[in-house]
């Protein structure tokens, strides 16, 4: 007795070579399913024939295509290598630029800054002389005593200049 016929799905699967034990067993005993499966198989074979025929080319043409592929692979390799070199050069350049910018900024931040002091005060001549005199009046070390005397004599007040000169000459004479 023949079991239930195979479904279309089972038949198409069988036509492509995918046969479960049930399918295989049924096909052996059921001529109807076998015939249906054969139709599917023939259609597939026909499709294959058409595809193979339409895709057929001469040996020369296959050779040309093969060389063309090899050529393109070589070109792709060259391009890849060149691209890698360019990338390396770009990366190096970018690194160099970053380094230069960093050094420049670092140099600017550590360069000695000229701190401008308070503006110089202008002192009048009279004030300057009185300041010198005040300093001369201060106690000086022994080594500088003769010099202070000399400066005191030379820097005396105008009114007393003559007196100083006279006394100075007198001192020299006495010496």
């Amino acid at each position, binding site marked *: 007795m023949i079991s239930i016929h195979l479904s*279309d*799905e089972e038949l*198409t*699967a069988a*036509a*492509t*070579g*995918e046969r479960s034990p049930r399918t295989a067993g049924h096909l052996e005993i059921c001529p109807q399913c076998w015939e249906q499966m054969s139709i*599917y198989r023939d*259609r*597939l*074979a026909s*499709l*294959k024939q*058409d*595809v*193979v*025929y*339409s*895709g*057929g*080319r*001469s*040996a*020369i*043409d*296959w050779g040309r*295509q*093969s060389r*063309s*592929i*090899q050529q*393109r*692979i*070589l070109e*792709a390799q060259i391009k890849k290598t060149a691209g890698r070199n360019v990338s390396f050069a770009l990366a190096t350049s970018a690194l160099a630029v970053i380094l230069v910018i960093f050094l420049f900024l670092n140099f600017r931040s550590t360069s000695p800054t000229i701190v401008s002091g308070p503006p110089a005060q202008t002192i009048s001549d009279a004030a300057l002389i009185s300041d010198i005199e005040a300093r001369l009046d201060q106690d000086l070390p022994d080594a500088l005593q003769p010099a202070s005397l000399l400066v005191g004599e030379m820097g005396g007040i105008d009114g007393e200049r003559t007196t100083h000169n006279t006394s100075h000459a007198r001192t020299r004479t006495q010496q």
Partner: protein
Amino acid sequence: MLQAAAPAGAKTEAESPFADFDEFIRLYQQRVYRLVLAQTGEPDLAEEITQECFIRAFQKQKGFRGDCQVFTWLARIAINLVRDHFRNRRFAMWRKLIRFDASEPQQSQAEQVPDPASTPEEHLLRRERLERVSRRIQRLTTPQRDALLLSAVEGMSIEEISRATNRRPGTVKSHLHRAMMNLRNWREGEQQ
């Protein structure tokens, strides 16, 4: 000769299917071309995509772990390339519509160079057969087309198709069945 690195799964370079890449190309170019041609229906485009497929294979050979047939892996690359191409072409068509640029079809026709070794009759016959295949194939959805071509033309099992198309075996089986139904309906219509 193109030197290729051994894939991750291969034990030695001699065992690698890519050890002699020139030979690898010669071995698989016809099958890849045939598959792409059936999907696109355009010989020049099929040639272009076939070349691109081998370039990708060369570049990505380390990604081949040897857990499937080499052709299954190649078919996957080819299918993805075809898919990408048509996706880009759709965008290109929109771009062309926007720009009113009609130069592309003329260029495409100019690039069609017949095989110098085949006779004009052979060329014509091949064209006719290709058109017939294309008419049938274009009625299918992309997953159905992939499943049908890999099964009928390349004789791949459901498991292999599943790997090549990155779909589950159950889904592949379903697509294949629908493709066959579609094919049957079309052929019955043709005979009337």
